């Protein structure tokens, strides 16, 4: 029971911290689930992240796998509600209020001030996944080729992600 309360607390916190999307909270999620609460190993955290990548819809549905791993179906439900519900409620009401501050110059200030902070957080999230996954030349080459293809052409990233997985499985052993 205590663990369920911790899980709800952790993911509700991550929910309201998710400024700029899911990637910026990856380091904090890793810290809380691996180092702080010892729910997962680094390797499990990375595998769960990858599971989120190959499923359709938002990648952050990976949090359901963490919930399921810790407390079965109930855990998945609790984590899902804790992670998604606060943001949905905030957005529903904040968006309705938004019109009132439409012309406030502070709107632009927040937007342009937070943009570089979000970029920095995305770099941190990327770095966290890189440390967990790039341990040899093959992995490095897969990451580099995915990046170059995406910078060069408008390709569906989902396809490249699956190709990356298959290539690594073929080449790494």
């Amino acid at each position, binding site marked *: 029971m205590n663990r369920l309360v911790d899980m709800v607390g952790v993911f509700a916190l991550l929910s309201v*911290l998710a400024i700029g999307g899911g990637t910026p909270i990856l380091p904090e999620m890793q810290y809380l689930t691996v180092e702080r609460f010892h729910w997962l190993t680094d390797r499990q955290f990375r595998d769960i992240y990858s599971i989120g990548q190959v499923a359709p819809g938002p990648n952050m549905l990976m949090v359901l796998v963490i919930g399921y791993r810790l407390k079965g179906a109930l855990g998945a439900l609790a984590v899902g509600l804790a992670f998604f519900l606060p943001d949905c409620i905030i957005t529903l009401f*904040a968006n309705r209020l938004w019109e009132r501050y439409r012309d406030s110059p502070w709107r632009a200030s927040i937007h342009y001030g937070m943009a570089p902070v979000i970029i920095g957080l995305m*770099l941190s999230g990327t770095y966290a996944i890189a440390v967990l996954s790039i341990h040899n030349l093959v992995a490095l080459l897969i990451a580099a080729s995915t990046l170059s293809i995406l910078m060069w052409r408008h390709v569906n990233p989902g396809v490249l992600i699956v190709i990356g*997985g298959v290539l690594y499985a073929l080449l790494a052993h």
Partner: protein
Amino acid sequence: MDLEKPSSEIKSEPPARPQISLRGLFRIFLTLGAISFGGGVVAYMREYLVRGQHWMEDEEFLDALEVSETLPGLNAINLSVIIGDRMRGALGAALAVVGMTLPGTIVVLALAVLWQGELHFQVVGYFLTGVAAAAVGLLVALTVQLGHYQFRRLIDITLIALTFVAVSVLHLSLPLALLLIAPIAIWLYRPIVGRVNPGVPHFRRDLRRGWFRH
């Protein structure tokens, strides 16, 4: 009884939003949740809702995206809430979010049952490692594209570096890092009479190019 005609036929409202049933709204978000792969959900939404279904003008979609990005939460989910709410109120918002997440939820939970933390086949472990490695490439591409304007301004580069060092090198907790850096960042861009905030045209143009985002 002509006088009792629904007022919508008499008033000349700004472009009437297409009428959509709750069931229809749910079905469309369910489709979106099932077909969007690889972190490109927002791009799929724009393509499907603006160009496919003509639910709204592109400008309106971009406005909603701007709100979604400023508020905490995943952009795709926040957008679902905003668009669902506009089409059919709070219930529409709820159905939009459930539709958007249901297909992925089923897939992810099926994989969770299969995975169970242990890997019965070594090859699955290799596959997931390769997926994560490719995802790193994708994340770098996303970050570079999202921040290509910021990467050219010294003030922004400084803030980017400061944030990265705080989180990845000093290992500050995210709330603390945000508490320290966000006020400075917003203050640097505070409204000053006569100064136009930079980047506005860039921001709009980038959105129009419809880059995939998380």
